């Protein structure tokens, strides 16, 4: 199912600056504004795969919050799935966000321990007004798409391993066939062997659904596999942008260069094996 037909991009940010109000000191009641993102512009077309490369403190989490409609920027335009999301009142924003899929970073905090997997995965279908039978079908299809066995549907999260939790979250994020998939460090919590499985899984899902996929990660090597284009974020500013291969081959900004260099750890030894 290709969404390439839609004209508006999945995400379009223009000159976005955002931050938080923080208490100024222990004794003061005043709050000061701490800027976390400055003048960030980026564009994700329908069906495109983008990686947002950033380390801790780069502002990548804030960027996700802005796109999800959770943090109003002090400057700039935010257009998500064709809507100026901050012009919509907060209680109505679900109309846009329900067309997205979001996989948060920490699977332990993203699964309600008192709900069965089936109910967790079915939740995004709440507003779709589907008959129960169809909901069940979609849930079953989603679970199969993440290569988990149907019996998992009856489990509570406590019975799931780390890799299984991640897959359940991905199933939940795609059950309603979103137009945009947002992933926050999708493989950081996983073992090497599971990481590879999940990377391949995400790509096959993205291909099938034709949705735009934005993966926020600090791992350049993983980003290679999940995206064609990348945006490098450093201290709240976009320092580099373009096709990922090019950034890796010839990084232009100082930070990107340092980043790429740090991946030269032992590569020659492994390269010899490939």
């Amino acid at each position: 199912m290709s969404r390439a037909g839609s004209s508006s991009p999945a995400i379009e940010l223009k000159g976005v600056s955002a931050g938080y109000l923080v208490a100024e000191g222990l004794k003061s009641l005043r709050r000061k504004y701490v800027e976390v993102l400055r003048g960030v512009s980026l564009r994700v077309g329908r069906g495109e795969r983008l990686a947002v490369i950033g380390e801790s403190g780069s502002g990548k989490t804030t960027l996700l919050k802005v796109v999800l409609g959770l943090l109003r920027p002090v400057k700039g335009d935010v257009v998500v799935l064709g809507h100026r999301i901050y012009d919509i009142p907060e209680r109505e924003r679900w109309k846009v966000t329900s067309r997205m899929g979001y996989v948060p970073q920490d699977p332990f905090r993203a699964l309600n321990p008192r709900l069965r997997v089936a109910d967790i995965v079915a939740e995004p279908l709440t507003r779709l007004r589907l008959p129960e039978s169809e909901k069940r079908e979609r849930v079953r299809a989603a679970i199969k798409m993440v290569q988990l066995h149907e019996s998992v549907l009856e489990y509570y999260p406590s019975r799931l391993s780390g890799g299984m939790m991640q897959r359940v979250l991905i199933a939940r994020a795609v059950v309603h066939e979103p137009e945009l998939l947002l992933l926050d460090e999708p493989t950081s919590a996983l073992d090497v062997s599971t990481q590879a499985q999940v990377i391949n899984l995400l790509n096959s899902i993205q291909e099938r659904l034709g949705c735009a996929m934005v993966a926020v990660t600090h791992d350049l090597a993983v980003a290679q596999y999940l995206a064609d284009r990348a945006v490098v974020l450093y201290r709240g500013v976009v320092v580099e942008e373009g096709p990922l291969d090019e950034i890796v081959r010839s990084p232009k900004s100082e930070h990107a260069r340092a980043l790429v260099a740090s991946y030269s750890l032992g590569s020659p030894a492994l390269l010899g094996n490939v």
Partner: protein
Amino acid sequence: MVLAVEAKELSVGYEESDELLWAVREVSFEVREGEAFCIVGESGSGKSTVASAIAGILPPHGVTDGELRVGGRVVVRGNERDYEGVRGRLVTYVPQSPGASLNPYLEIGDQFYYVLSSLYGLSRREAVEKARAYLRMAGLEPDAVLDRYPHELSGGMQQRAAIALALSTGARILVADEPTSSLDAHLRLQIVELLKRLRAEAGLTLIFITHDMLLAGALSERVAVMYAGRLVELGPTREVLRKPLHPYTSMLIESVPVLGVKRPLKAYTGEPPSPGEPSGGCPFYERCPFRLEVCASENPPAKEVGESRRVACWLF
């Protein structure tokens, strides 16, 4: 040749809700003095437990079997453990996140003081002198760090301070648990360089734990691969990476995404078993593409293959 660490059929277990789970099973290896040795494994492999056993920080409710020697002294024999004079003196430990080894309520200078005064009875002035030396060795500017609290330092500086603190005990064996995992990528290279330099300058024996094959390749001379509590392969790092013998080692190498190389990622099905899941035969049986009938019922013993390489696999 003096062995810094020698493990013979070492097993370590924990009690978890009434059951005894073995996190490490019958592991045997040697670490020579002055060597850089790496233990590689995923979650549940038991690598952190081995590190804790060497460093002398196993929890009191742990259970052990087999034998472990550190610096020539027996520290584990059967279910008896004795780390007197070894822990903190011969072997020191740097945990994964520097937040765990640096007391958040003490300034860095104070932390050195407490460690050095309790180990060697040094006065405050003497302790600060030593602290300066070690901090400089770790690449930190002492005046910028001594009066600071850990949270005032960046992650990289914290890690360096933790390493300096560990070294100040005068121990010659440094056990580091995932020394770079909690750091941003551009800091990793720096810490690797630091550890290499420290080894050269101070003649340290470095034992570190990681899941990152690339790190192992960059920093270690010999590597031990663990899976589900067992040692599955052991040998010189370059050779093991170039020509892995055990199917699990091959899997580890093939699944690692390497920057600049876009081969398709080979994903093996299944996941590492959680600690304590009993397995009659080889723990890798479920996922092994080369499995034989015997693998299901009998656990392969470690065999010498060529000089200085060991594998625990029925293929050999």
